[in-house]
């Protein structure tokens, strides 16, 4: 099984709560759409084997909780991410306005080599429901050098394109960097763990540091 694919690309889906992060992962990986979803608690991931221009690649897509409160946890997962699908909801202006917050967050926590794709979800909505014009999405995408897609999980628009575009950008980035992003499988397994709490408990163990008599 491990030989079925050439590499694993770890991808993170980020964006405000309720923009459709879980939904897009379901749509893409399970090819399903549900009308009602539950909010994501903690973190989960799904994997999909894709054909990237003739090369089999495993996409490992991490789905995160959107609320800012859980950022301390989710940033632990930024570290190994090679690509980020950043999402907003075209019917929710706030989710668009918060993109700057998310971009700053990515800059602070993710690898500088991480590649990003922007997706404006729920584009099947009516004109009256729409709060963010396509041009505004395009503009911010251009400023931050991200490919941009308006997508719809409900109507299955551009989902595949958005993920393939992200995968291609990851491949380009790896080639540019001489493939030392993750040239073996074992490193893909790298956990977000071992930092945060690892050091936390280590810190409490090394309390005897204080005593230097």
């Amino acid at each position: 099984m491990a030989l079925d694919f050439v590499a694993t690309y770890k991808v993170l889906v980020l964006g405000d709560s309720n923009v459709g992060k879980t939904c897009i992962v379901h749509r893409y990986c399970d090819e399903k759409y549900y009308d009602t979803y539950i909010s994501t608690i903690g973190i989960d991931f799904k994997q999909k084997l894709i054909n990237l221009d003739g090369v089999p690649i495993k996409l490992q897509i991490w789905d995160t909780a959107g609320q800012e409160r859980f950022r301390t946890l989710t940033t632990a997962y930024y570290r190994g991410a090679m690509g980020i699908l950043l999402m907003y909801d075209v019917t929710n202006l706030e989710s668009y306005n918060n993109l700057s917050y998310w971009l700053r967050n990515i800059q602070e926590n993710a690898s500088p080599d991480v590649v990003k794709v922007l997706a404006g979800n729920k584009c099947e909505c009516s004109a009256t429901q729409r709060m963010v014009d396509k041009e505004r999405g395009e503009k911010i995408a251009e400023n931050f050098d991200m490919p941009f897609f308006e997508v719809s999980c409900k109507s299955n628009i551009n989902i595949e394109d958005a993920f393939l575009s992200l995968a291609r950008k990851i491949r380009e980035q790896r080639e540019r960097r001489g493939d030392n992003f993750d040239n073996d499988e074992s490193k893909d397994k790298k956990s977000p763990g071992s930092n945060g709490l690892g050091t936390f408990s280590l810190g409490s163990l090394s309390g005897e540091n204080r005593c230097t008599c």
Partner: protein
Amino acid sequence: MDESVRYDRCHQVHLGVLSESQFSSVEEDVQNLPPQGTGNILFTHDGVLLKKASAEHIADLNTSGSLSLVEYSRSSAELPRRRLLLEWQPNDSIMIADDSQDQGDWALVDRISGRTRTTSECRAFNTRPIEPSGGANTRSRIMRAQLEDLSSVEVRHRGQTIRFMRKGANGVHSEFFFQHGNADLFVRSMRDQHLIENAETSRSGGEEYAILTTENQKLKKTFAELDIGQIKASHLPRESWLPNKLAGFLGNIPDYVQPPFQRSPKPRPGVLISGDRQTSPDNYQIIGLSGSTNSACSSNGQSRGGSAEKSPADSELETLNAQDEKIVNNLPDRQRVERGLPLTETQWLEFQTPDGRISDSVRIKELIFRGGVVQSLRPEVWKFLLNYYLWSDTHVERIERRKQKSIEYYNMKAQWLAMTTAQEANFCGYRERKCQIEKDVKRTDRSLQFFAGEDNPNLTLLQGILMTYVMYNFDLGYVQGMSDLLAPILEIQVNEVDAFWCFVGFMELVFTNFDIDQAGMKTQFAQIRRLIEFANAPLFNYMRSHDSDNMYFCFRWLLVWYKRELNNEDVLKLWECLWTRLPCPNFHLLFSVAILDQETRVIIESQYEFTEILKHVNELSGNIDVQKTLQVAEGIYLQLKASETLPNDIRSIIGEPLLPVATGEEIDGGTVDEEPTYSDDGFDELVKELTPEEKLRQQALLEEACDRSLFLQFH
């Protein structure tokens, strides 16, 4: 298997005759060694942190590695006979050649696969990445010292810390911290090989040993060999014709067979000495930290995963170690506990006095913990469990209380109902909370009949209660997950006032889960980690060696008390059990430990890494047997409670009385005592009484507000 102590593997790295297959690995080893000589590991201990060293090793401080005693012999005459070196090698530079077969290479001592850290991780860890080849960089990271350059050894902090002193007045050469077990075996090994001898007890209360010069070593050895008890020392591999395994076994022979003059120093508590069991009151201090070497036997048989892959030799060793381990941890066998039937209406009535008080709340809680509550009683009994009603109140007092709480509720509800659009526009914090509630209400438990369908009035109730909670506790506000906690309560209570105050009671138990800094969650991760370390060492060791001991995968379990893992009926059942706070505080953590206990074999045998464990844990949703897991959790609780060597930090987690810390001992380094993490229910905060004057004034205000809010609500 005990991963921290490998004294059985006294393999010679370089033998006179090598098989071809060994050649390649030996070539590499040659580079790892000092310029000349062949190395022979006399003793190795894993999980040893480098605490102090010369500047060149600064990047490896606080890194875990293996501390070894290595003997190099030289065939040419340039250098004197044999040289003994102390070596410490960081774990992440140790690669496994093939852990399925014994290759006699000391590289075997660690199972941690080569894992390259990213730059940012390295910053976080204060370490530097190893080269993919494990080449030059690795070599330079090995810390070596010739024993003859050292003057003495100090053991401190109840055996947890070992310090090597330079010759002359040059001070500390290096210091190590034993994460697992303690320095006893290391010291014993050195003593048995006549490399050190007891010196004065040092000023700090620790133990001090002088490192013997080569001449003295010989003398000591010759002297010792005159005694028949010295057979034990024959496990020195260099002179030994005994197979290594046997040598290891001999190393296990307890010290009491030794002649008195070379008895071991006063054994510290927690040391692996069979037949010489320490029961001094300060036992727990060490045993806690050496938890990883224990309790393989404490988990029930099914938990002992991974043994299938072990070579017969390993199994044999494990059996030997298990005997030691059992003594150290001393967790009694797990008892099977029985669950009971739900509390019935008849029983409930029997507990009520004529004026409506609940006569024996302790017994009631016991019954509820054991079997839950019948559906028809839930609305009433939950009000008591969630501290909305007081057990001691009479019927009349309860009616009055409910009335008061109702007024209070509508008062707070009026506050947000009266918020104007302009106010809202100028009140970001409020707006954010409101938006988040709206987003979550429409995706909370919609598959349940009670919340299903468009324009379901119960969704309005759910939203109203959460909004009112925002006004009740604006600082906490609304955080994702709270709607999950409220939904079952509302479903049972139906009435919004009752549901609100029950929810407030529940939030008192779990509000730290939603803290902005997530400190409450982190504390619970650490507590679960600690409980597993003590109660399920095989799993703990596995997870630690696979970078999975941060327990992040328990996040969803803890945040909403398993709401997402169970069907609705099981959620109700589990929560009412947990609300009793029986049999101990933090029983909800033992529920996590119990789930993982049942998954131990799968996790270890499947060789799951962090991501796979996360996936596995997430996929357990819908497949957890609540009754069985409650039984396992209680079984583990009883094991812990009955343990004679339960460390104080675990006592505090499960609400056992703490043992006094022995005076005159250094406290630090001994236990991982954290800040007092367990706080009692917090219910007391809720029932603060007002003075009669305050009550009257409040009353007038509230009635006015209530009228207004009701007016707003219905017009």
